């Protein structure tokens, strides 16, 4: 046990960062006026990092990986405090340096790359001003030198128009490009360490691979050390020399990248490595689909922005159609057109042999009941002031007029079906975990006894293990309730686990459509090939191989 928790080799030379017995606490204020209490987020974690090396910090949400990463800059988000241990950076304990010490360290010796560059850039300033800001602040270069350095970095990170991109404002640049500009910003002041905090998590897979490659090259060429924080083991395997697995603020396992992904010693690491494997036998379509989308074209802004172009798909009873594509490909718009939230300009939606009303207001209650939705963000899809019982009971009252004991009995049944049980009936959404919230949303949609549930990125915001549980639940429920799913996702691993047929969307069009076995078998069209080859694989050297084998560039470029 102990041998897995310390690094195999402990070189004393070239040590850049040495965190010893780090303890981080936060004060939480529970709802309902209870006394505030102190919780421990990080329990006595130690780590070392050599100059020019990359350490991946991996774990689910709440594992404390960002908190540890930020502690190397002496920073605590919100009310987070470093209450114990030492953070020795470049030979000195930075925790003893005080505010002044932190300011000299941040942006000079350690820089930070945030998860969402779109939010982390100030919308009011031009990119160049922000990229060189830290360099100028710490006086390590003149403005002209810093800008020259920035342009060189833009080039290295293969940004388009490296000479002029700095004149733009953040909103004028795409998400994948912004993430690379942010990496350039971190590299500009030539720090010794960069903390990458989920830098590719918010990007499409096809964009992620470019950003990942750019970051990897930049790290290699500048010899900067890095803490690479992510929940995606396959991603971290591409860039790290070593990987540290964390859970609930404690160290689980720490070792070389190859050892962690090939020979994990801890059970938890093993679960993370093998997480996506669900065997789902594809079902053949029955004679007639119960819902057909026929040549639907839809647009926003009064017809100006066409987001769906002549889309046709069929959904068969009790089966799953997965719709995949990157952001902006029209996946969610298809769902909006089917439900009547966005009336199509052309084409129609046929349900049980008759054409559904284009608008929501044209559809009778019975039609509304047959099509239910589950969303990506379960916590904003529920009224925070209603209990789980009220939330699940609402469709029972609305569609079936159930009340009192009858309704409560049905709510209890549904809670059992989603494997949560009766004890949750009086709980509020805020008291549930992310996975439990999504389960309640599933129960709410099931309560209407629909023929089709539209699942819009329902597992994207969840940790892999939790997401896996949700997928298994959805598959079981499909067996029991004979409900069909329209499963919208950008994650191909999820698609393999759940789909019977697949529609690949690209820029508003269905570019490939058919049974799962057909869609996922070669020969591929260029876009499907790009999409499939962009999904990170848990193997060392996958990134280089994938980049070499590409036939088209991603739309995010």
């Amino acid at each position, binding site marked *: 046990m102990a041998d897995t928790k310390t690094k195999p080799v402990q070189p004393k030379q070239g040590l850049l960062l040495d965190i010893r017995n780090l303890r981080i606490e936060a004060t939480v204020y529970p709802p309902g006026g209870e006394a505030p209490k102190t919780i421990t987020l990080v329990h006595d974690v130690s780590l070392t990092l050599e100059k020019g090396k990359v350490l991946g910090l991996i774990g689910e949400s709440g594992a404390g990986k960002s908190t540890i990463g930020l502690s190397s*800059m002496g920073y605590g988000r919100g009310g987070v405090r470093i209450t114990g241990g030492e953070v020795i950076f470049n030979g000195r304990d930075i925790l003893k340096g005080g505010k002044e010490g932190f300011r000299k360290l941040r*942006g*000079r010796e350690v*820089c930070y790359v945030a998860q969402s560059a779109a939010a982390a850039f100030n919308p009011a300033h031009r990119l160049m001003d922000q990229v060189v800001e830290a360099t100028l*602040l710490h006086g390590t270069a003149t403005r002209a030198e810093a800008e020259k350095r920035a342009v060189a970095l833009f080039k290295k990170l293969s940004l388009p128009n490296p000479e002029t991109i700095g004149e733009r404002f953040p*909103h004028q640049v795409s998400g994948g490009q912004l993430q690379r500009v942010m990496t350039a910003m971190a590299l500009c002041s030539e720090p010794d360490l960069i903390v990458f905090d989920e830098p590719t998590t918010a990007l499409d897979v096809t964009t992620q691979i470019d950003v990942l490659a750019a970051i990897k090259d930049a790290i290699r060429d500048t010899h900067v050390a890095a803490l690479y924080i992510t929940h995606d083991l396959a991603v971290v395997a591409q860039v790290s020399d070593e990987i540290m697995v964390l859970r609930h603020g404690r160290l689980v396992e720490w070792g070389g990248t190859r050892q962690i992904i090939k020979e994990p010693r801890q059970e938890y690491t093993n679960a993370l490595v093998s997480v996506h494997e669900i065997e789902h036998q594809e079902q053949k379509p029955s004679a007639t689909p119960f819902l057909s989308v026929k040549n639907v074209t839809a647009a926003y802004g009064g017809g100006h922005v066409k987001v769906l172009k002549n889309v046709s798909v069929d959904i068969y009873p009790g089966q799953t159609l997965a719709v995949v594509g990157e952001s902006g490909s029209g996946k969610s718009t298809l769902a909006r057109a089917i439900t009547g939230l966005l009336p199509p300009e052309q084409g129609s939606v046929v349900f049980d042999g008759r054409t559904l009303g284009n608008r929501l207001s044209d559809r009778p209650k019975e039609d509304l009941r047959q099509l239910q939705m589950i969303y990506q963000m379960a916590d904003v899809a529920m009224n925070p002031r209603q209990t789980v019982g009220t939330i699940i009971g609402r469709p029972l009252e609305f569609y079936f007029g159930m009340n009192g004991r009858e309704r409560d009995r049905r709510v209890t049944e549904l809670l059992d079906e989603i494997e949560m049980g009766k004890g949750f009936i009086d709980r509020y959404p805020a008291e549930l975990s992310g996975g439990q919230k999504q389960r309640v949303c599933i129960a709410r949609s099931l309560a209407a006894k629909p023929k089709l549930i539209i699942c819009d990125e329902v597992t994207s915001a969840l940790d892999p293990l939790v997401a896996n549980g949700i997928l298994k639940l959805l598959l079981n429920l499909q067996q029991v309730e004979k409900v069909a799913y329209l499963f919208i996702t950008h994650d191909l691993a999820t698609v393999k686990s759940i789909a019977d047929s697949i529609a690949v969307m690209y820029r508003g069009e269905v570019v490939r459509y058919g049974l799962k076995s057909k869609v996922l078998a070669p020969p591929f069209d260029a876009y499907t090939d790009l999409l499939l080859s962009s999904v990170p694989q848990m193997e060392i050297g996958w990134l280089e191989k994938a980049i070499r084998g590409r036939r088209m560039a991603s739309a995010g470029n």
Partner: protein
Amino acid sequence: MSSPILKLIAQRIALGILLLLAVSVLIFAGTQILPGDVAQAILGQSATPESLANLREQLGLNQPAYIRYFHWLGGVLTGDLGTAMSSGQDIATSIKERLWNTLFLAFWAAIVAIPLAITLGLIAVRYRNGWVDKLISGVALASTSFPEFFIGYLLVYFFAVKWQIFPGISTVYDGMSFLERMQAIALPATALTLVVLAHMMRMTRAAILNVMQSAYVETAELKGLSAFNVIRKHAFPNAIAPIINVIMLNLAYLIVGVVVVEVIFVYPGMGQYLVDHVTKRDVPVVQAVGLIFAAVYISLNIIADIGAIVANPRLRHPK
């Protein structure tokens, strides 16, 4: 500058003009609804029906209301605000001087109040929830909570009566030197500053605190910027729109809402002029002043809207 922004600004201005026209209708209608008319008012209760009819004919009062409205509007647009009933003087001439006095007072109050409010707001955010923040908020709130006549009399009591630094009555006249004028308006300007300070200060604080939660503020902190520079360079530029809004509202108040302060300090501005003529039931003057106040209010709000549009980089630099 690009076309969407110009389009938005043109829209705001057109809307403002439309609104002003609507207000002019309301003002005109309002004065028509009041019992009695100008002829009645001029001749008094002892007027015979014949003399009333004659005067109405003379003043054009027996024309239909909409004709009189357009007549009045036409006059306003060409700078003719009519004649004051009580004194027989040309309204435009008397208002010109008074409007200038009001603007002079408002200008100096604003020059002090706006930078002071913003600076105090920035400082309050920098030391948020500490004693500095609480002191600033407390004092500013207290000064706003006191009615302005109370503040006015306090100032008069201490600065004019007890210490005799500034005059208690702010008489201004032609030929005064700039310094004399400044001395005369010192007390009313101070009273106005105290009245509008807290509103702007608290809005600045709230607007900045709102953006302090943003990820880009964290980015700035992680670059090693000092706390105050994070606020000034990164938070403030993104909080400008609501701040401009509240500043413009208070500027409007400085011009339109000075009635009480002008009366206390006997300052010959628009407010006092209005109060005088309301008591005399001088309808043409009330109409004219009302319209001017409405125009000031609407234009300052348009400026606030345009300011918010221009402050938004997404509109200023479209994709």
